[in-house]
Protein backbone atom coordinates (compact mmCIF):
# COMPACT_ATOMS: atom_id res chain seq x y z
CA UNK A 1 0.00 0.00 0.00
CA UNK A 2 1.30 3.44 -0.91
CA UNK A 3 1.14 6.07 1.81
CA UNK A 4 2.32 9.14 -0.10
CA UNK A 5 1.67 10.57 -3.57
CA UNK A 6 -1.24 10.25 -5.99
CA UNK A 7 -3.78 7.44 -5.47
CA UNK A 8 -2.25 6.68 -2.07
CA UNK A 9 -3.73 6.39 1.41
CA UNK A 10 -2.89 10.04 2.13
CA UNK A 11 -4.62 11.22 -1.05
CA UNK A 12 -7.79 9.28 -0.13
CA UNK A 13 -7.63 10.50 3.47
CA UNK A 14 -7.09 14.06 2.20
CA UNK A 15 -10.27 13.89 0.07
CA UNK A 16 -12.26 12.39 2.97
CA UNK A 17 -10.96 15.07 5.34
CA UNK A 18 -11.92 17.80 2.84
CA UNK A 19 -15.53 16.59 2.99
CA UNK A 20 -15.36 16.18 6.78
CA UNK A 21 -13.92 19.73 7.13
CA UNK A 22 -16.97 21.37 5.55
CA UNK A 23 -19.34 19.13 7.51
CA UNK A 24 -17.47 19.98 10.75
CA UNK A 25 -17.60 23.70 9.92
CA UNK A 26 -21.34 23.56 9.31
CA UNK A 27 -21.86 21.35 12.37
CA UNK A 28 -19.84 23.69 14.60
CA UNK A 29 -21.70 26.75 13.38
CA UNK A 30 -25.02 25.01 14.03
CA UNK A 31 -23.84 23.79 17.46
CA UNK A 32 -22.79 27.31 18.51
CA UNK A 33 -26.09 28.70 17.22
CA UNK A 34 -28.07 25.98 19.04
CA UNK A 35 -26.08 26.58 22.26
CA UNK A 36 -26.76 30.34 22.11
CA UNK A 37 -30.47 29.69 21.43
CA UNK A 38 -30.60 27.19 24.30
CA UNK A 39 -28.73 29.33 26.83
CA UNK A 40 -30.73 32.47 26.09
CA UNK A 41 -33.97 30.54 25.37
CA UNK A 42 -34.36 32.10 21.94
CA UNK A 43 -37.12 30.66 19.80
CA UNK A 44 -38.95 31.90 16.72
CA UNK A 45 -42.19 30.18 17.60
CA UNK A 46 -41.69 27.25 15.21
CA UNK A 47 -41.32 23.65 16.53
CA UNK A 48 -37.60 23.32 15.63
CA UNK A 49 -36.34 26.46 17.37
CA UNK A 50 -38.69 25.86 20.29
CA UNK A 51 -37.19 22.38 20.80
CA UNK A 52 -33.65 23.80 20.57
CA UNK A 53 -34.50 26.58 23.03
CA UNK A 54 -35.84 24.01 25.50
CA UNK A 55 -32.87 21.71 24.90
CA UNK A 56 -34.99 18.54 24.91
CA UNK A 57 -34.05 17.56 21.36
CA UNK A 58 -30.77 16.06 22.62
CA UNK A 59 -32.08 14.03 25.56
CA UNK A 60 -33.05 10.90 23.56
CA UNK A 61 -29.72 10.79 21.72
CA UNK A 62 -27.48 10.97 24.81
CA UNK A 63 -26.06 8.14 26.93
CA UNK A 64 -27.14 7.93 30.59
CA UNK A 65 -24.00 9.68 31.89
CA UNK A 66 -24.16 12.42 29.23
CA UNK A 67 -27.91 12.82 29.89
CA UNK A 68 -27.14 13.51 33.56
CA UNK A 69 -24.46 16.09 32.59
CA UNK A 70 -26.81 17.73 30.08
CA UNK A 71 -29.63 18.05 32.65
CA UNK A 72 -27.13 19.41 35.17
CA UNK A 73 -25.84 21.93 32.62
CA UNK A 74 -29.37 23.04 31.74
CA UNK A 75 -30.23 23.57 35.38
CA UNK A 76 -27.28 25.95 35.87
CA UNK A 77 -28.02 29.65 36.32
CA UNK A 78 -27.73 31.79 33.17
CA UNK A 79 -24.52 33.46 34.44
CA UNK A 80 -22.75 30.09 34.71
CA UNK A 81 -23.98 29.03 31.29
CA UNK A 82 -22.54 32.22 29.78
CA UNK A 83 -19.23 31.58 31.57
CA UNK A 84 -19.07 27.94 30.40
CA UNK A 85 -19.95 28.70 26.77
CA UNK A 86 -16.50 30.12 25.82
CA UNK A 87 -14.98 26.82 27.02
CA UNK A 88 -17.04 24.83 24.51
CA UNK A 89 -16.32 27.39 21.78
CA UNK A 90 -12.56 27.13 22.56
CA UNK A 91 -12.63 23.29 22.39
CA UNK A 92 -14.56 23.47 19.11
CA UNK A 93 -12.17 26.07 17.67
CA UNK A 94 -9.09 24.02 18.63
CA UNK A 95 -10.64 20.93 17.07
CA UNK A 96 -11.40 22.81 13.84
CA UNK A 97 -7.91 24.31 13.71
CA UNK A 98 -6.40 20.83 14.13
CA UNK A 99 -8.48 19.50 11.24
CA UNK A 100 -7.45 22.51 9.12
CA UNK A 101 -3.75 21.86 9.77
CA UNK A 102 -4.19 18.12 9.15
CA UNK A 103 -5.78 18.95 5.79
CA UNK A 104 -2.66 20.95 4.82
CA UNK A 105 -0.42 18.08 5.94
CA UNK A 106 -2.37 15.43 4.03
CA UNK A 107 -2.48 17.67 0.93
CA UNK A 108 1.34 17.81 1.03
CA UNK A 109 1.58 14.05 1.59
CA UNK A 110 -0.70 13.39 -1.37
CA UNK A 111 1.67 15.51 -3.52
CA UNK A 112 4.53 13.29 -2.28
CA UNK A 113 6.01 16.18 -0.28
CA UNK A 114 7.10 14.44 2.92
CA UNK A 115 10.47 15.55 4.28
CA UNK A 116 9.83 19.24 4.06
CA UNK A 117 10.26 22.08 6.56
CA UNK A 118 6.68 23.21 5.90
CA UNK A 119 5.41 19.84 7.13
CA UNK A 120 7.53 20.20 10.29
CA UNK A 121 5.81 23.53 11.03
CA UNK A 122 2.38 22.00 10.40
CA UNK A 123 3.01 19.04 12.73
CA UNK A 124 4.40 21.43 15.34
CA UNK A 125 1.20 23.49 15.13
CA UNK A 126 -0.93 20.32 15.40
CA UNK A 127 1.07 19.23 18.48
CA UNK A 128 0.57 22.61 20.17
CA UNK A 129 -3.16 22.63 19.35
CA UNK A 130 -3.43 19.07 20.67
CA UNK A 131 -1.69 20.09 23.92
CA UNK A 132 -4.27 22.87 24.31
CA UNK A 133 -7.12 20.49 23.56
CA UNK A 134 -5.81 17.81 25.94
CA UNK A 135 -5.43 20.36 28.75
CA UNK A 136 -8.93 21.77 28.17
CA UNK A 137 -10.55 18.34 28.00
CA UNK A 138 -8.22 16.81 30.66
CA UNK A 139 -7.22 13.98 28.33
CA UNK A 140 -3.88 12.35 29.24
CA UNK A 141 -3.85 10.09 26.14
CA UNK A 142 -4.19 13.09 23.86
CA UNK A 143 -1.41 14.85 25.81
CA UNK A 144 0.93 11.86 25.36
CA UNK A 145 0.17 11.81 21.64
CA UNK A 146 1.20 15.49 21.52
CA UNK A 147 4.52 14.63 23.16
CA UNK A 148 5.07 11.89 20.57
CA UNK A 149 4.25 14.40 17.83
CA UNK A 150 6.95 16.75 19.17
CA UNK A 151 9.48 13.90 18.82
CA UNK A 152 8.15 13.15 15.34
CA UNK A 153 8.66 16.82 14.45
CA UNK A 154 12.33 16.59 15.32
CA UNK A 155 12.72 13.39 13.28
CA UNK A 156 10.98 15.03 10.32
CA UNK A 157 13.14 18.15 10.65
CA UNK A 158 16.30 16.04 10.47
CA UNK A 159 14.77 14.18 7.51
CA UNK A 160 14.06 17.52 5.79
CA UNK A 161 17.73 18.54 6.17
CA UNK A 162 18.85 15.18 4.70
CA UNK A 163 16.34 15.53 1.86
CA UNK A 164 17.70 19.00 1.12
CA UNK A 165 21.26 17.62 1.01
CA UNK A 166 20.10 14.77 -1.23
CA UNK A 167 18.30 17.11 -3.65
CA UNK A 168 21.40 19.27 -4.01
CA UNK A 169 23.77 16.33 -4.53
CA UNK A 170 24.19 15.99 -8.26
Amino acid sequence: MRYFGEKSLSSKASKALDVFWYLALAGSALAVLAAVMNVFSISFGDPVTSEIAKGDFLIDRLSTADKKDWIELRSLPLVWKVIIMPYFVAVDALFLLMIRQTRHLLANFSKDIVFNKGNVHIILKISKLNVGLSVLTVNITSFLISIMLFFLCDVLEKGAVLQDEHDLTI
Partner: protein
Amino acid sequence: MSIIFRLDRVMAGRKMPLNELARRIGLTDSNLSILKTGKARAVRVNTLDALCRELGCQPGDLLEYVPDEGTETEDE
Protein backbone atom coordinates in the same frame (compact mmCIF):
# COMPACT_ATOMS: atom_id res chain seq x y z
CA MET B 1 31.82 28.52 -0.67
CA SER B 2 35.51 28.33 -1.63
CA ILE B 3 35.11 25.67 -4.32
CA ILE B 4 33.82 27.10 -7.59
CA PHE B 5 32.47 24.87 -10.31
CA ARG B 6 33.83 26.01 -13.68
CA LEU B 7 31.43 23.93 -15.73
CA ASP B 8 30.14 26.94 -17.68
CA ARG B 9 33.70 27.83 -18.79
CA VAL B 10 34.52 24.28 -19.94
CA MET B 11 31.15 23.94 -21.68
CA ALA B 12 31.67 27.22 -23.52
CA GLY B 13 35.16 26.03 -24.56
CA ARG B 14 33.70 22.81 -25.98
CA LYS B 15 30.62 24.64 -27.41
CA MET B 16 28.46 22.09 -25.63
CA PRO B 17 24.84 23.15 -24.90
CA LEU B 18 23.44 22.37 -21.46
CA ASN B 19 20.61 20.14 -22.64
CA GLU B 20 22.94 18.11 -24.87
CA LEU B 21 25.44 17.55 -22.04
CA ALA B 22 22.59 16.68 -19.64
CA ARG B 23 21.28 14.09 -22.10
CA ARG B 24 24.74 12.56 -22.60
CA ILE B 25 25.54 12.17 -18.91
CA GLY B 26 22.01 11.13 -17.92
CA LEU B 27 21.08 14.11 -15.76
CA THR B 28 18.03 16.32 -15.97
CA ASP B 29 18.51 19.85 -17.33
CA SER B 30 17.52 21.31 -13.97
CA ASN B 31 20.08 19.22 -12.07
CA LEU B 32 22.86 20.18 -14.48
CA SER B 33 21.77 23.80 -14.15
CA ILE B 34 22.12 23.51 -10.34
CA LEU B 35 25.66 22.25 -10.90
CA LYS B 36 26.45 24.97 -13.46
CA THR B 37 25.20 27.80 -11.26
CA GLY B 38 27.13 26.54 -8.23
CA LYS B 39 24.04 25.81 -6.13
CA ALA B 40 24.97 22.13 -5.63
CA ARG B 41 26.04 21.03 -2.14
CA ALA B 42 27.88 17.90 -3.30
CA VAL B 43 28.92 16.18 -6.52
CA ARG B 44 28.89 12.39 -6.97
CA VAL B 45 32.07 10.79 -8.30
CA ASN B 46 29.91 9.15 -11.00
CA THR B 47 28.72 12.57 -12.18
CA LEU B 48 32.26 13.94 -12.20
CA ASP B 49 33.40 10.88 -14.15
CA ALA B 50 30.64 11.34 -16.76
CA LEU B 51 31.35 15.08 -17.08
CA CYS B 52 35.09 14.49 -17.60
CA ARG B 53 34.36 11.75 -20.16
CA GLU B 54 31.92 13.85 -22.19
CA LEU B 55 33.83 17.12 -21.98
CA GLY B 56 37.27 15.48 -22.40
CA CYS B 57 38.76 17.20 -19.37
CA GLN B 58 40.22 16.54 -15.92
CA PRO B 59 38.32 17.07 -12.63
CA GLY B 60 40.72 19.92 -11.93
CA ASP B 61 39.46 21.74 -15.04
CA LEU B 62 35.95 21.71 -13.61
CA LEU B 63 36.76 22.70 -10.03
CA GLU B 64 38.64 25.69 -8.73
CA TYR B 65 39.55 26.60 -5.16
CA VAL B 66 39.24 30.30 -4.36
CA PRO B 67 40.17 31.18 -0.76
CA ASP B 68 37.53 33.14 1.13
CA GLU B 69 38.48 36.64 2.21
CA GLY B 70 40.25 36.47 5.54
CA THR B 71 41.32 32.83 5.03
CA GLU B 72 45.01 32.44 5.86
CA THR B 73 47.18 30.48 3.41
CA GLU B 74 50.80 29.22 3.63
CA ASP B 75 52.01 31.85 1.12
CA GLU B 76 50.81 34.75 3.29
